[in-house]
């Protein structure tokens, strides 16, 4: 049981580290780093799903009979792109927030909202 699944458990640990950073951090940039960590770990999870022991990379070659599953790879290619697109948009928002409020710390932001 254990050696078969520990791979996934480590990945889950990684995901949760990212998730924790997102929730607990007050700095907007740090939140994004955490989000990126979270997403990248999910990608690792997917790619682990596609692995076949003894298989080779899914590029057709003579004499190779066992390949790893190409479908998760395709999904994750798409997901990586989606992730970076989200990050870019979020960073643009952070820059605008910084210009409008003068800070990127969550607590200060909330305070300044209450003031006005």
């Amino acid at each position, binding site marked *: 049981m254990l050696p078969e699944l520990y791979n996934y458990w480590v990945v889950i640990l990684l*995901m949760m580290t990212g*998730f924790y950073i*997102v929730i607990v951090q007050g700095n*907007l940039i740090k*939140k994004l780093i955490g*989000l990126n960590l*979270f*997403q990248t770990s*999910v990608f690792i*999870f*997917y790619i682990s*799903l596609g692995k076949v022991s003894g298989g080779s990379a899914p590029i057709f070659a003579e004499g190779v009979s066992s390949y790893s599953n190409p*479908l*998760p790879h395709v*999904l994750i290619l*798409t*997901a990586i792109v*989606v992730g970076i*697109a*989200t990050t870019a*948009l*979020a960073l643009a*928002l*952070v820059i*605008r*927030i910084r210009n*409008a*409020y003068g800070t990127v710390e969550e607590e200060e*932001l909330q305070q300044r*909202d209450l003031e006005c």
Partner: protein
Amino acid sequence: MLSHLPILQVVVPLLAAPACLLLDRSRLVWIFTVLACGLSLLISMLLLYQVSQHGTLSYDLGGWDAPWGIEYRIDLLSAYVMLVVSGIATLVIVAAGTGLEREIPLEKQTVFYVTYLLCLAGLLGIVATGDIFNVFVFLEISSLATYALIAYGRDRRALWAAYQYLIVGTIGATFILIGIGFLYSLTGTLNMQDLAARIPDSAGSRTASTAFVFIVVGVCLKLALFPLHLWLPNAYAYAPSLVTAFLAATATKVAVYLLIRLHFSVFGEQFASSSLPLHGILLTLGLAGVFVASLVAIFQPDIKRLFAYSSIAQIGYMIIGIGFGTAIGLQATLLHLFNHALMKGALFLALAAVVYRLGSADISAFRGLGRRMPWTMAAIVIGGLSLIGMPLTVGFVSKWYLILAAIEAGMWPVALLVVTGSILAVVYVWRLVEAAYFQPPENELPEGLDGPDRREAPLTLLVPTWLLVLVNIYLGIDTRLTVGTSGAVASALLGGGQ
């Protein structure tokens, strides 16, 4: 060409968006956007007709058969939701012709329209597709576009609201992604139909339950189910008014659609109710959402915020309907989904007209508005009555079915609570009516507004608003179409799941 309608529905706005960017002259862009939205409205009408005549449509993208390629699958439910989405989108974009100029600087308008079309395409794509990963992709298209649209708000708090929504939305999407991963590891397929056929084989498996939980939580983050709703009020309140009108009437509805689709068509009612105490949880959260949000709404000084909280409450009603787990409960949910899109669309469009004239949606701005902008205020009042659930409006129909469902399920307290929730709605709508009709107008107008701005809103804003209001009333009186459709859909969903 008619057999290609399912894909054209999504591709028309999708490709109109980059084409829009190439035009780059804001009046031309607007006309083009209106045409694209109108075309997609036309397509959705044709689709609804086709589906009601010939049953479910299936379309293989790239010519590959379903489990290998991506399939578009339009049944009565998706056709109906698409009609609502594209209809609201068209009305809002017509209103944007004049309504937008005060909220968004001219040089950014082209990009705004492009983003708007992308958002529409994303929402339609979620509804049309029969492939669970494709849902994720289009969910992200619409979400990214939504974040950008919200950030166009003039108030700097719009930025902060958009950022919060982005974080929550991305977590939600990632949860959905995790859920899809678990499902894939169990079944080896991504096609919804195929999944539905294969999930029963692994019923009782902890992996399937986890997948279900993660997908449901992810979708609930998107649809702002209490207590995951914290992003919504700010996002709606600070977004440009027209964007709010569009989002409130469509985005959360599409999320509810997604929940229904995944719950009933993919997992099936049996799986959902046997593996988890889901119904109880949904009922409780729905009720809690109705009460908490309605109570908060009563004390909101900003009317956009007030209606945003009211949206959360209405989403609560929809969730209650699902929570019954019966055909009539589901029917109530579906009815409310359509009807709420109609009323919130009308309400927020009318609010957009108020903001256009007065530059503010604060309750103090509404004093005496009943005389200054009689048509707009009348629209708000009718929309509000519909929200409460007065007879002769659509709101009544859906509340009625909800109560019927509660009684049928033998849950008298729930029925009673639903009625009480409506009384709370009376309170917050009354505050508005009181301000508009029974309080004298402010002596001093806000600065920078002179004579002409005291008039009624321009026709381009009023006509779409009143169209929605009239549909509200018409469907409140003639209930055959909506009730018939939703009844058929509900029994099909429950029947298909077993």
